């Protein structure tokens, strides 16, 4: 689909203003159909996440329930992650080159990594908040720090592989902790959370690696969208 990574480029190869004409030519290889699908996909997921967040926010305001808090935060951070995932592509394709191009890309990369980490950690906390030991593991600031640290490491090293590895490690840790603390081992809800994490990991892989899953990208996008829609329908059904 892309001859180079559609979204992120290693910091050593970041484009400068002098390279703008080259970038322009290169990104016309990303045809309109592909660009439209990418933007529609991101836009749809962001909209679904925003609705889920809004619907669950009232429940949290009333109840102060920790699980609901982390559940709504999950979709808040997923919305941010999908937004920062698509931003570089939009900027490149529309030939918008902000001043300080390198800084702009690095910042987006940092925010993408941060939002992704927080989304994963929020899912884990929503399911296992009751069973986590009291103290430092119950503090919001602990998880914010972990996400910021991971994002900073990823940005400084500038390696897509490091980014993928850190997110995969986080997802595996979340899966293990969730499985350990989960009461009903094979419930559909648990499987939904698992698929959400797995699809997100595949989305990251597609974002950072040009030809990864090239032929099945649209299938993944469709399945991801269906999953988010299923969650949205459940949320709407339960918040009437």
């Amino acid at each position, binding site marked *: 689909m892309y001859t180079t990574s559609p979204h992120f480029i290693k910091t050593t190869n970041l484009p400068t203003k002098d390279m703008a004409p080259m970038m322009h030519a290169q990104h016309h290889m990303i045809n309109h159909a592909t660009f439209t699908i990418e933007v529609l996909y991101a836009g749809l997921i962001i909209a679904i996440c925003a609705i889920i967040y809004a619907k669950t926010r009232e429940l949290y305001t*009333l109840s102060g329930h920790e699980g609901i808090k982390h559940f709504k935060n999950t979709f808040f951070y997923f919305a941010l992650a999908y937004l920062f995932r698509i931003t570089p592509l939009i900027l490149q394709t529309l030939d918008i080159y902000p001043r300080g191009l390198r800084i702009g890309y690095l910042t987006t990369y940092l925010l993408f990594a941060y939002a992704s980490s927080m989304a994963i950690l929020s899912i884990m906390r*929503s*399911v296992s908040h009751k069973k986590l030991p009291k103290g430092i593991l119950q503090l919001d600031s602990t998880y914010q720090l972990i996400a910021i640290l991971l994002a900073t490491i990823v940005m400084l090293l500038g390696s897509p592989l490091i980014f993928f590895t850190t997110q995969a490690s986080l997802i595996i840790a979340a899966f293990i902790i969730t499985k350990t603390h989960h009461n009903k081992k094979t419930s559909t809800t648990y499987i939904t959370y698992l698929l959400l994490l797995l699809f997100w990991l595949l989305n990251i892989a597609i974002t950072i690696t040009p030809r990864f899953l090239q032929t099945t990208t649209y299938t993944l996008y469709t399945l991801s969208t269906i999953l988010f829609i299923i969650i949205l329908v459940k949320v709407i059904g*339960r918040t009437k």
Partner: protein
Amino acid sequence: MNKKRERLEVINDILFIIREHDNSIKPTPLLRYSNLSSQRFSEYLKELQEKKLIKELDNKGRKHYTLTDKGFKYLEKYQVITGFVDEFEL
């Protein structure tokens, strides 16, 4: 043996008691009806006031508690909240 009540259920019980007493009840009967230890009762009362689900009124030196609009809404939405928590296993 009764299982331990979850936090949401305890809050619901306290708010329900206040509403059932014409939305005005003194601390001592509230403690008695809530079936909580005095320490836990004080903790919950503090939380309910901080979250603005109840308010404390003073009528000629006699303290009593009433529900706020938010407190009424909690009672209305309690089943929705617990249903949501159960559905998503939170």
